């Protein structure tokens, strides 16, 4: 037997066999040669009818005893077989020794089922439900011993003892949370207080600083103002000194200005005697012109006279000349 048949699980793995299908082995009463001992393929088993069953030669039941006919039929069959083998078709293998293949048709064994079973219809219907009367209480007879049990207070569990851990956890957690919160608040309060103290000191010092700044500013302003004032005062003093000096000088200069002025003016002829001026301006020119004219007249007169004399003299000369010349002619 091959080991394959022992494998209970299908190669695909989807199901198992409790008894795996096996091919039927070739078993014969006589020990067979080794080659035939292997199990036969069902396809090549001669016992299995192959091919169409309606064209097979059906051996009638009466012709079984005729040996020659059977021999002839066997020969025919073998020829058919060889013929078919040539066409390589699968055929029923030949009958084994001591056996013959017989085509059997079950036509002869057919029976007509002709008996009709007598059947009768019957109906049944339940009645409508009737109210069932109450079943009487079934009280079984009392047998055995009665036993009772009762759970008293404190027997199942002791509340006070059991609640302790739970309570501890609850209280512990609450305390923890509240401690945290309180610590946080305290820390914040401390920080705030520190900050406030610092702020106060800072404010203090800031105020002091500002006050000193302001003081400084005021003082420096005051100083500046005073210095400016002082400078102004000095300036004024200098001016006044200069003014005084200038005044003294001018006074001194102007002291003898007046007589000098007068004297220069008089020298320039600004102060004049009006009569004298008048005489000078009006009279004297007239006088001079008169004198001039008189003198001019005199001059002209003299010039005239001179010219007359000259003329006369000239005439006399000429006459004398003439006379000179004439008497020579008229001589004596």
């Amino acid at each position, binding site marked *: 037997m091959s080991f394959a048949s022992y494998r209970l699980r299908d190669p695909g793995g989807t199901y198992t066999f409790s008894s795996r299908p096996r091919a039927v082995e070739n078993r014969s009463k006589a020990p067979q040669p080794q080659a035939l001992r292997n199990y036969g393929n069902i396809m090549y088993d001669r016992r299995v009818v192959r091919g169409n069953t309606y064209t097979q030669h059906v051996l009638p039941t009466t012709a079984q005893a005729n040996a020659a006919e059977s021999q002839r039929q066997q020969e025919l069959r073998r020829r058919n077989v060889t013929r078919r083998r040539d066409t390589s078709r699968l055929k029923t293998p030949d009958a084994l020794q001591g056996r013959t293949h017989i085509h059997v048709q079950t036509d002869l064994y057919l029976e007509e089922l002709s008996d009709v079973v007598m059947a009768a219809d019957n109906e049944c219907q339940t009645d409508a439900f009737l109210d069932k009367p109450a079943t009487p209480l079934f009280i079984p007879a009392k047998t055995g011993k009665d036993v009772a049990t009762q759970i008293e207070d404190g027997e199942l569990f002791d509340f006070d003892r059991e609640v302790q851990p739970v309570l501890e956890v609850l209280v512990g957690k609450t305390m923890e949370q509240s401690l*945290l919160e309180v610590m*946080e608040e305290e820390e914040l309060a401390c920080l705030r207080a520190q900050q406030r103290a610092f702020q*106060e000191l800072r404010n203090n010092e800031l*105020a*002091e600083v500002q006050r000193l700044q302001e003081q400084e500013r005021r003082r420096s302003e005051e100083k500046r103002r005073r210095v400016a004032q002082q400078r102004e005062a000095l300036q004024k003093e200098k001016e006044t000194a200069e003014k005084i000096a200038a005044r003294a000088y001018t006074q001194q200069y102007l002291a003898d200005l007046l007589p000098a002025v007068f004297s220069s003016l008089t020298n320039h002829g600004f102060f004049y005697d009006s009569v004298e001026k008048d005489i000078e301006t009006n009279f004297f020119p007239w006088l001079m012109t008169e004198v001039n004219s008189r003198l001019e007249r005199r001059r002209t007169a003299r010039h005239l006279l001179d010219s007359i004399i000259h003329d006369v003299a000239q005439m006399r000369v000429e006459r004398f000349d003439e006379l000179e010349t004439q008497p020579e002619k008229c001589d004596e």
Partner: protein
Amino acid sequence: MDAVLLDQTRAPVAFGRRAVPQLFEQLQRPESDSRRRALASLCDLMHEPERIYQTVNGGFLEQLKGLLKDKDPTVRKQTCELLHLLSGHNIGRQALLSSSLLPPLSELLDDDSSSCRRNVHQVLNRLALLPAGADALLCLVPKLMMKLKEEEEEEEEEVQVLLLSTLSCCSSLDALPALALDAVSLVRHKLSHSSPNVRREAAAAMMALSVPEDGKRRVCEEAVLPVMVGLLQDTDVKVQANAAGVIMYTAITTPGKLQCLDLDVVPILLDLVSKKKEEEEEDNMERRRRMKALIMYSLRALTALAEAPNGRCLLLEQLPLLERRSEAAEEDEDIRRAAQTAVRVITWTP
């Protein structure tokens, strides 16, 4: 996973290091109910510095940006509360400042839900306590001032207190932006509020505003000093201290000095400085600390006022009182120094 929650308002918290990342993963879920629960658990966890370190270093802050714009107002409010807790620690504050969460946060100032707005103010207030934070919030000063103007009567005093506190912190860093928006008159209005907290914060803001020159000038112009003199006699010590601070700063300038002397503030200040004698025996550190600020500011104010001739005359009469202060009997170094300066200024002759 959906087992019965012991506390319906909080999500279950994982153990150890896994707590914070898992809660942040839960925040990504679309149902707002689970987000609310996760936020509530996170708020509980964030009181511990190690968790805050984990949050900040794990880079979970960017997720919060999306949550700030959520539709559900409870989610927004709780996100702001978470940020409030984060800003209680230094790493949280630094992370907040360096991340880009400030613009969406400032948008939430106009939110509809008032509790959300209150939480936003709390976050801003905590941030402003840090100088770097105040620096970052300087650009928000105009918006905050607008909010202060709007919240005349409707908001609760808590929001007003927070707003004024934030403004005073920002102004102590740089008062000029606030002054430019006429903060002096706005804060002056708050000085007469009924609640001492509001008055205290308003006086503190005024003190911060009166540090620069411009502020001093404005304070004189807007007749704030009479109100301050009234506040000097307030019941709350801190209010008194802040009012004295304002006077101290304003009296440095000449118009301020003249106004203060007109208002006859010197006797009140002297009274404040000398009042502590009886209480010195009190062993209450807290009270003594609070009084210290008041006394220091009053001394400095007196010093500033002593530079004016009228003031000097008045104070020369009271010189023994101040000399008592400057002696070695006074334990507090700063008060002693301040008193010595005052005495020196008073007895100065040109």
